[in-house]
């Protein structure tokens, strides 16, 4: 078992997202995260999924998703040749006397302050998933009150060789 990132281009049609996500539960695979949004082409959405499975299962998932009528393309994004980013919003509990300390600590991380309240600050962090996790660890001693993550999105690196990614479900 290992975690894989799958990128799916699909027509933005009613039920299209449900058909993809249903495929995972139907075949007994658990989705760790799922992010969906528009692409450069009107009417086409990109779905980025993180899923825990074996290589054999991954091949099955890709082939099964590929069969869905609304799905245009399925590729695995391998860590070495793709760019992956995620956004987190983290509300950290902090009393006024500790505020300076927290802001100083987080300044070097590149996190932005999205909102400051009387006893809490909401940070906005964009980065690789491991950077988000590092930030969460950093502020945890203060007390994390709320956390929301978008789930990762990814694209293949243009620098990762000349070939376009081959859809794995090409058969």
């Amino acid at each position, binding site marked *: 078992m290992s975690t894989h990132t799958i990128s799916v281009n699909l*027509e933005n049609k*009613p*039920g299209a997202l449900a058909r993809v996500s249903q495929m995972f539960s*139907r075949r007994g695979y658990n989705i760790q995260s799922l992010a969906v949004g528009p692409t450069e082409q009107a009417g086409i959405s990109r779905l980025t999924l993180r899923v825990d499975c074996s290589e054999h299962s991954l091949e*099955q998932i890709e082939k099964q998703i590929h*069969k*869905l*009528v609304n799905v245009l393309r399925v590729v695995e994004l391998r860590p070495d040749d793709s760019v992956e980013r995620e956004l987190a919003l983290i509300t950290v509990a902090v009393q006024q006397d500790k505020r300076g300390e927290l802001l100083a600590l987080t300044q070097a991380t590149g996190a932005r302050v999205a909102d400051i309240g009387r006893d809490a600050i909401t940070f906005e962090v964009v980065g690789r998933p491991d950077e988000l996790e590092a930030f969460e660890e950093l502020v945890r001693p203060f007390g994390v009150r709320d956390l929301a993550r978008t789930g990762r999105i990814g694209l293949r690196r243009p620098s990762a060789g000349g070939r376009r990614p081959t859809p794995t479900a090409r*058969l």
Partner: protein
Amino acid sequence: MTKTTKMLGSDAILRCLEHEGVDVMFGIPGGAILPTYDAIARGTTVRHVLARHEQGAGHMAEGYARASGKVGVAMATSGPGATNLVTAIADAWMDSTPLVCITGQVRSDLIGTDAFQEVDITGITMPIVKHSWLVQDVRELPAVMKAAFHVARTGRQGPVLVDVAKDAQEAEIDFRYPDDVDLPGWKPPTKVHRPQIAEAARAILAAERPVIYAGGGVLNGDACDELRTLVEAADLPAVVTLMGKGCLPDSHPLNYGAPGMHGSKYANWALNKSDLVIAVGTRFDDRVTGKLSAFAPGARVIHFDIDAAEVGKIRHAEIPVVGPLKLALAELTKALREGGKPGHDAWLRQVEEWRRLFPYRYGKSGTMLKPQAAIEAARDLAASRTEDVLWTTGVGQHQMWAMQYVVCDKPRSFITSGGLGTMGYGIPAAIGAKAARPDATVVCIDGDGCFQMTGQELATAALERLPIVVVLINNGWLGMVRQWQEMFYAERFSETHLTHQVPDYAQLAEAYGCAGFTVRDEEELESALEAAFDAGRTAVVDVHCDPEEKCFPMVPAGAASVDVLEAPDEEGAIA
């Protein structure tokens, strides 16, 4: 710009069916599909067969599709009408039967409000359809219908669902049936990869113990002639699954029949002891493989399939070949002919020896009629007829005996529920098959448990003048469950005794306007079957059979399929 015609959505649905060449559909009206039934009353060339339960309509559409090779069409209303179709849709999904199901949906302004007879049928059926559409805007209807038929019949065939809101049926449209489909994500394979064919041919020529393992995909892929040519060109022994029965003539000398849980020992041994399994349009179902880790342990696998997702799903394929079987098998034969003569004569002699040693057999002792004898009598009668005979079955012991003893030499002559194992499939499927093939005699080998699940469709058969012959293997039990209880649950026959007391099936048949016969011994059997075949109307032959007869050979669930249990030896066991 092609001319458009103003019409209602409901009429447009029928015009779409006519454009697709549909000649029969099966259904039941109700509130949300009323406008379309009103359009049927206004006129259409499509014959509507009125079923008595939507499940029946669904199985009729399946039987029609399987017998004809065309797309079956079923129609139902929203809510319970739609949910009653679900079993048939799941059945079609498992057996890759092309089906277009059209359901009425509540008005679009009521969708999502838990309105009367509202269910989310596209949601409910999502895991068991190739695709589905909810039509709320009448302008989408023609394109959706075009796409529905296209998706159902291309690639690996299967069911689709079109759910049409009542107001979309009532709205007016400038109708024009599109010439093309607009489905950028639907690209089933149309070609095969040549180098893979060459590799397959090399593997076959090099093999010492090759075997073809052919399934229902050969029928669906219209590749029966190509399979036969291949088998004969390279002298390849073939085993044929339940779903594939008929894709290679049963009486062909190289056809070794069905492998699997109730297949013959020789077919299972041919498959398991081979060094090269050539799988064609089949999916390594657990009922065929038995314990997977022990299945054909010494074999490499060539897997031909139209569906890439089936290749490597259960068993790794050393040589995958994805594409249309008709094309792939023809190419393979060509490659084999160029490559010289295969040398596996010793293997052919071995498999033939196994067939001689381990034929299907059953004991004749006891006073009650053996179910196998009833099926053999029906088979022999069918063989003496000049017209084609098509067979359907329910699910259970009688189905397995039908698989073992019925001889099908033509494609699409054996119609059964394989993947889902739907009891009650036989009678409605026979009615659908009869609608597709009015020239043929359609015989349903049924069980008494199955009969009582869909027997009300005898009314449909009688009133729609779609006569079928039902040979009821009546042992008074849910026989296959009883067999498992006897063998694996220490003879605790929990809730499986249906009895021979009620109903009186012959009387029930008469009540439905059909001919009814009761058979209690071998002497009555032949004349009753003959009378039923010649009745000119639907006939039910209720054959009271030995309830203790078990279905053998058997590979117990979870056992290696090479470890076949044979019928116990007894005095008078006959081949």
